[in-house]
């Protein structure tokens, strides 16, 4: 029954969003990635419908999880009230054409209306791109969480969404070499933007606890989430053995999800409290002060 003691100026783990919110970034990223790649597949003449449907499923899953997170779910429609500045409103707004056009495209394809289907898919994909961008900007606008507000996180969220989508695309299109190539390329880019994100965050200064969590995550993320699937993909392409590509896809997506879960629920320390100077008590002295619990200024 003992309540948590909250003393101290140190950054502490944010308590607003938990795994349910993380699921939205996971579902939203993977889903929009899939939908964008579905359009690419369509333009390349490949089968795109499974990717679209799976993508919609993922985005829907994410949004459903959010519904469980918010305190007043029956007021959920209020989310649309602030498009002027809120990336969350914008995300919500874009979900409408995303689903509308996505479902329409699927229906048209089913009905054999290929032209209309492609048009619908295009609209859904553009919406998905916007949706994904909104997700990246949602984190950037969370100015209380240094690891989220870091602009270098934006490219990571975008690339990781595509990579997670590509991972599942490799599963859906098991054995299609082009899917493996796309995933391989995205894995390389994702490793790069992750590295860039971490470096930038550390350079600019962040809560030590955040950097510690990210520091523990990174070797595993790079080895298991990038090097291993890349190796599998190269092997799959060389040996032309599709199960390897499927495995690589699942690992690449799964590690992206894991990284997001860590980002949202563990590497998410607050700014903490800090003062630039100490006060002069009577005839005492003032000194400059550091940020408690931070890696550097």
């Amino acid at each position, binding site marked *: *029954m*003992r*309540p*948590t*003691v*909250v*003393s*101290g100026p140190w950054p502490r783990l944010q308590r607003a969003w938990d795994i349910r919110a993380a699921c939205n970034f996971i579902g939203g990223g993977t889903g929009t990635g899939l939908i964008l790649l579905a359009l690419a597949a369509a333009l390349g003449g490949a089968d795109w419908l499974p990717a679209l449907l799976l993508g919609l499923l993922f985005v829907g899953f994410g949004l459903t999880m959010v519904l469980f997170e918010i305190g007043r779910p029956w007021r959920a429609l209020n989310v649309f009230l602030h498009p002027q500045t809120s990336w969350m409103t914008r995300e919500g707004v874009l979900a409408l054409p995303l689903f509308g056009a996505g479902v329409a495209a699927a229906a048209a394809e089913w009905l054999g209306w290929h032209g209309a289907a492609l048009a619908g898919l295009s609209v859904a994909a553009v919406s998905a791109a916007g949706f994904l961008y909104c997700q990246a900007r949602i984190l950037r606008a969370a100015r209380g969480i240094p690891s989220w507000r870091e602009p270098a996180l934006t490219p990571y969220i975008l690339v990781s969404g595509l990579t997670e989508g590509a991972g599942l695309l490799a599963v859906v299109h098991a054995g299609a070499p082009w899917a493996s190539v796309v995933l391989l390329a995205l894995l390389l880019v994702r490793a790069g933007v992750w590295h860039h994100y971490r470096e930038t965050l550390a350079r600019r200064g962040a809560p030590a606890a955040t950097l510690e969590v990210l520091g523990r995550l990174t070797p595993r993320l790079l080895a298991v989430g990038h090097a291993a699937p890349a190796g599998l993909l190269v092997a799959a392409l060389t040996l032309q053995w599709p199960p390897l590509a499927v495995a690589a896809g699942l690992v690449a997506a799964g590690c992206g999800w894991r990284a997001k879960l860590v980002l949202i629920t563990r590497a998410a320390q607050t700014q903490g409290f800090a003062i630039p100077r100490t006060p002069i*008590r*009577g*005839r*005492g*002295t003032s000194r400059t002060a550091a940020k408690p619990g931070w890696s550097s200024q």
Partner: protein
Amino acid sequence: MKAIRSNDAKWVPTYCYNCVAGPDLLTVKVENGVATQVRPNFAAEGVHPAAGRVCVKAFGLVQKTYNPNRILTPMRRTNPNKGRDQDPGWTPISWDEALDEITARLKDIRARGLIDEGGYPRVAATFGHGGTPAHYMGTLPAFLSAWGPIDFSFGSGQGVKCTHSEHLYGEYWHRAFTVAADTVNTKYIVSFGSNVEVTGGVCAVWRHADARDRGIKRVQVEPHLSVTGAASAEWVPIKPKTDPAFLFAMINVLLHEHPREALDVAFLRDRTASPYLVGPGGFYLRDPASGKPLMWDTRKGAPVPFDADGAVPALEGRFNVAEAIEHGPDGAVIPHQAVEGTTAFTLTAEEMRGYTPEWASGVCDVAAETIRRVANEYLENASIGATVEVDGQTLPYRPVAVTLGKTVNNGWGAYHACWGRTMLATLVGALEVPGGTLGTTIRLNYPHENRLASVRVGEDGFMAASLNPTDREHWLGKPSGRNAHRTLVPLVGNSSWSQALGPTHLAWMFLRDAPEGWPRPTFPELWFFYRTNPAIAFWDTRQLSDIMAQMPFVVAFAYTQDETNYMADILLPDATDLESTQLIRMGGTKFVEQHWEHQGVALRFPAVEPEGEARDLTWIAGELARRCGLQDRYNRALNRGAGCMPLKGEKFDFSLAEDREYAVDEIWDRVCKAATAAFSDGTEVHGLDWFKENGFFVVPFKRIDWYLTPTMIEKGLRYELPYQERLFRVGKELTTRMREAGHHWWDGQLEEYEPIPRWHDFPGMWTKTLAKMGGDPADFPLWGITTKVMQYTTGNNAAIQLMHEVAGNVRGVGRVMLHTGTARKLGIRRGDLVEVRSITGVTRGEAEPVEGIRPDTVVIPGQFDHWATPYARDLGYPSLNTVAPLSLDLTDSTGSGADVVLVSVRKIGEAAQ
């Protein structure tokens, strides 16, 4: 549930006296009969020194009222066995049943005699910190008075949790039961562990903040960076229990590194015993005819009695006196011919010569240059020669002060610290003058409410002192109370407060284990207590609980179940702070840092109806008096003033008829009227109803009355400093008495009666005692100390959730603080579970490594480790009290012990994620 919008809300005035720095004036919002909020009493702006603000504790009063864990009906124990492992088996009973059972016992006691075969009162009582319960117990004091002898010697922390030595020596030297800086006027304070920002109440916090604005420099000398240290200009970490060495070194700098004219020579010469000549026996040389102490008159070149007209005595030097006597112990007169007399000042200067900053540096672990600089800054700021006008009188202006905290002021070394502090004030003439070191209240002399009026002319040009006799004829060889305060501690006197200021731990210790040759005291037949929890607030709390379990019949005024009333036979639920009626005095000068420009009275009355069957203490006291057949004595006590003020004065008479019962409100209505009539000299009379609207009544209090020196001048008196001739004699006499009685267990304490205190290895006493108890000092390498916490201190409120919540923002509360480097060496990180172990006990809690603490010190704030109190028992907070031993060896001659214990710390669990 919908929010209820109240249309029946009002703010009612009351007071908070949860600590000695009260009362704070507040108002309580009452909505539809429910207390909902507390806020300051803004009407007190301009009256109360902190503009009617209340400290954080007062905000706990609403929860205190509605705490679901309250005991709300009288209870009887059904399990005859007592102990921590025995469920009391409480069963509710009616008030009639409870009072009948208690009264039957009381009447039986009265029938057999109030004093038992051992010579001790059969009834004993214990009340909480510093007299605070008196501000809630209504007319219970009238019942106590009506009853007769009661043993108050079972302490709840007195002597170890207060500023004990200051109480005794401060009141002896300058009517200063508590000592404060004249904060509103001073410029420089050296504070040795005094934590006024935590324990000084709102008045202290307010006026120190103003002083900082004004540009004061306060240097905090303390082993850890307390709140007061934080709010000071400088923090000087010092090894625990070495403060007297720092003080002596400051005295050394003043005496031996500056020309004499740099000191306040006139004050030393005219207002102290500095010029008194001391003979070879260590006593004053006296005029053989009059017996008066001699001084060397520089005009005549001859010795003269201290009060000789027109004499200009020599402050320093050695002089040949043709004929003189010394007054030794037990009336011994030592005649001298052609004897050399040395002024008390010279003896002091010589005694202090060796205590250089370089010497002190090795003792205190503080750089010599720091000590020297602080001493020089002190002298520089003293502005010797400056004057200031107060209420039309010109007084010296000496804006420097030295203040002492609890652990500095308790146990071994405390006498030396008190003397050092008072001497520093004396050397620069800063004692009891504007800007200097002041007393605030008195408790060992009368009248309690006016320390200036307590100054009576005594022997040798000094104030009369109220010492317990040590001469063969009058010494109380057979103690009147179980802590033997009148037998062992001459300085504590025999006022209504004295017994509880005696060595109160001895009462507990002797019940278990009396020293050789000392008769083991009897258990009191009936022990009752109110607003206190000694099973948490004292030391070696497990042992204390075991002793409590052996008390034959225990009556507890109970708020919730707690660790002490777990051993009770009857629980009586009393109406709490917001539920009961009382009028108390306020203002003037009072505990800690209260210097008001007003004085008067404040009322507390039921803002809300009492919960359950809880009853007002005034009702309970009246019932007990009536049922015991003491109505007349009870009413007479009330008429004499046991309920705040005498009911009859020159211009008013609101006396109670002696044979009649009065309702609670009727009694307080009369007290209100008497108080207002007394304060207004009969011009204003206000009853209870008026107070319910207005809350308080005040009249002006003159600022000049903050200072004792004008009274000393008016009465031609000198401060009994620097030389302690009288105490030296008293010590000799007491030594003889104890030897004659065959007691040697107090010998160490008797050595403390030095006329000029000398440094002893005080920290070493702890090491030696540890070794004597069978411990290896190497196994306990850290100094365990404690520090008070404003949210909790003296509030007996560990069960209040709000206090826990807000105290969580203060570092270290509920934790074990240690230095980051020490923690690193021990592999301890923030939040790890650690065990603090002493030779007698173990306490556990989370670690909080900090930079602001000496690497050899561990601080455990507050007093916790509850195991019975609902809510508090779930906190898992550590407590120094659990591991501090009750030890005769660590008790000083005033009967006090310090919150210091040698400990080890080890990690026993990882921090929760």
